[in-house]
């Protein structure tokens, strides 16, 4: 891995990474991929998120869906663990709670394949900050 040597280097690296992610997440074109983020903090793992993540990886592969399954930290919805977020190309991210294998199957079949929402969505109820903008 090459070292980052200056602030300019850092900014360039960020832009590269961001454009890669944007290509992956936002485009509606075939290269836009489904991204599934599973909340894998201690609380999530204790409620079975590891099994759900493995299931997602295996099943998406078996069903020939080109998707990226990644782990992330605690989303804060401890009452509804395991939780996961699905990003479909061209759609806003959707968070699902109480995901077991059955629910995961439903999410793949209905939401990922057909963009049909599934019961158990957790609505976003917080504000995000626009990170790099000085106000």
């Amino acid at each position, binding site marked *: *891995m090459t*070292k*980052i*040597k*200056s*602030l300019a*280097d*850092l*900014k360039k*690296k*960020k832009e590269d*990474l*961001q454009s*890669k*992610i944007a290509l992956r997440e936002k485009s509606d074109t075939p290269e836009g991929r489904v991204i599934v*983020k599973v*909340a894998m*903090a*201690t*609380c999530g*793992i204790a409620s079975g998120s590891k099994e759900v993540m493995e299931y997602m990886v295996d099943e998406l592969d078996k069903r020939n869906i080109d998707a990226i399954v*990644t*782990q*992330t*930290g*605690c*989303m*804060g*919805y*401890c*009452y*509804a663990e395991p*939780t996961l*977020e699905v990003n479909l190309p061209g759609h806003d991210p959707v968070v699902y*709670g109480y995901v077991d294998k059955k629910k995961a199957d439903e999410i793949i079949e209905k939401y990922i394949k*057909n*963009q*049909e*929402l*599934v*019961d*158990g*969505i*957790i*609505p*976003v*109820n*917080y*504000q*995000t*900050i626009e*990170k*790099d*903008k*000085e*106000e």
Partner: protein
Amino acid sequence: MAKFNMHMLVCGGTGCRASASNMLYENLKKELKEQGLQDEVQVVETGCFGFCEKGPIVKVIPDNTFYVSVTPEDAKEIVAEHAVKGRQVKRLLYVDPVNKKQISDSKGMGFYKKQIRIALRNCGLIDPESIDEYLASDGYEALGKVLAEMTPEEAIQVMIDSGLRGRGGGGFPTGVKWQIASKVDGTQKYVVCNADEGDPGAFMDRSILEGDPHTVIEAMVINGYCIGATKGLIYIRAEYPLAIERLKIALEQAREYGLLGTDILSSGFDFDIEIRYGAGAFVCGEETALIHSMEGERGEPTFKPPFPAQSGYLGMPTNVNNVETFANIPVIYNKGAKWFSSIGTEKSKGTKVFALAGKINNVGLIEVPMGITLREVIFEIGGGIKDGKKFRSVQTGGPSGGCLTEKHLDTPIDFDNLLAVGSMMGSGGMIVMDEDDCMVSVAKFYLEFTVEESCGKCSPCRVGNKRLHELLEKITQGKAEKEDLDNLRNLSMVIRDTSLCGLGQTSPNPVLSTMDNFMEEYQSHVEEQRCPAGSCKELIRYEIIPENCVGCTACARNCPVNCIEGERKQLHTIDQSLCIKCGACLEKCKFNAVAIV
């Protein structure tokens, strides 16, 4: 194949269900079917919107219409107007409480402002094991900016201007702390991250380390540059294995990118971080005890001054900050001190992460601006009390904090207000209690914890808390005399005033605050030998109400000690001498024939 072009999200949170949101859900489906729209409009049940006060909620997408207080009868109109004709049902729209205007697009709604994620900005969004995802979310940009464009003095000034105060519990201004450490001379200075999270029920530091470890690393490097330290130490409890693993990965990645090590970003500044493990002692969250533990000594506090800034780790100037404090810092440099200080109250800036737990519907991690009220946190974001029970009390600040009551619900939460009402911010545990919780037992629970965790160095804490616990034990057993209540208060004051460190000085808070707010409950234990909440085992009896008992034998079959007599279809009786008061009979009886007296 159905191709939906409109979705109706119906809140299925506990609060909304209590006001018939499930019937509303069914009605919407039925109405859509009648209109032949079942393949165009999909009805979906969701989790809690955090807006239970105005429930049930229906959100229609893609147009983001937000309907509030919707009854099952409104389904017809919503479908006929909104789904068929594309017109919003104006009377169900949310009305902004300030300007009294109806809000048609929920993106502009004020209630989203109840939670702002600053410290948790990346938690649940990025992969914590990928430095690239952190970099893409503006990671290490604050560090780059500070190293390239600011002198240490200027960078410290930003912290001072931001008004950030320590999130570990004390609330000391972070910038001032850095300034003091920067002015002390030392051959080697240290930056320490306190990740010894010990309050029962608090887990925000763990979540930050597990969800966004790089933010802590970045802030520690900035801290090092500001005070002239080249070494950082993270003191973390060994019982957080996942946080440790992710931290290790993050440290390795930062080194590979040259964001830790020598000559960081060609600035000539060197900094590296090591991890130190704690064995999980509560007192080691106190900074002097933490430092001794890292030095290999017993984890015991020492008197301040000297403060760690003067003589800390290995006698060198040391700055200790908590995980959540660090997590705020990169954002402050990216967005400016002015932005940060525009959030919060006059003396407490920014946000605070709370771990909501106890008898509350939406147990979880929330981040709210300082100044929000307990009512908003508990009844809106938290979704209210479980099983529709009555709110009794909320405990903040862990074993050092206090129990607040109904009358404090509208107090804006910040460091100073919580202290003024006899509790404290603490690290952010918030435990909600309902009518079934006995407040004397709650105080006893926290005392038990303090007695366990007292390091034993000073006698007020070692002996005093033990005696305090015995007094509480007597009260919950109904064996206390009237003067015991005076003794309880007096002893609490002595412990508070004479203990060596923060652990002892604050340990009587749960007792004092419950005495202040729930005196009548103490009195009924002492004077009438009665526990109003029905939870102190020695003071309650389970009895069978003859009029209601049908003789089904359910209680007798489930009694673990076989102390219930009675034939089928005959009245049952409980042998009080054998009863262990487990409550199994009460739980199993379907005829309300078992009562606590």
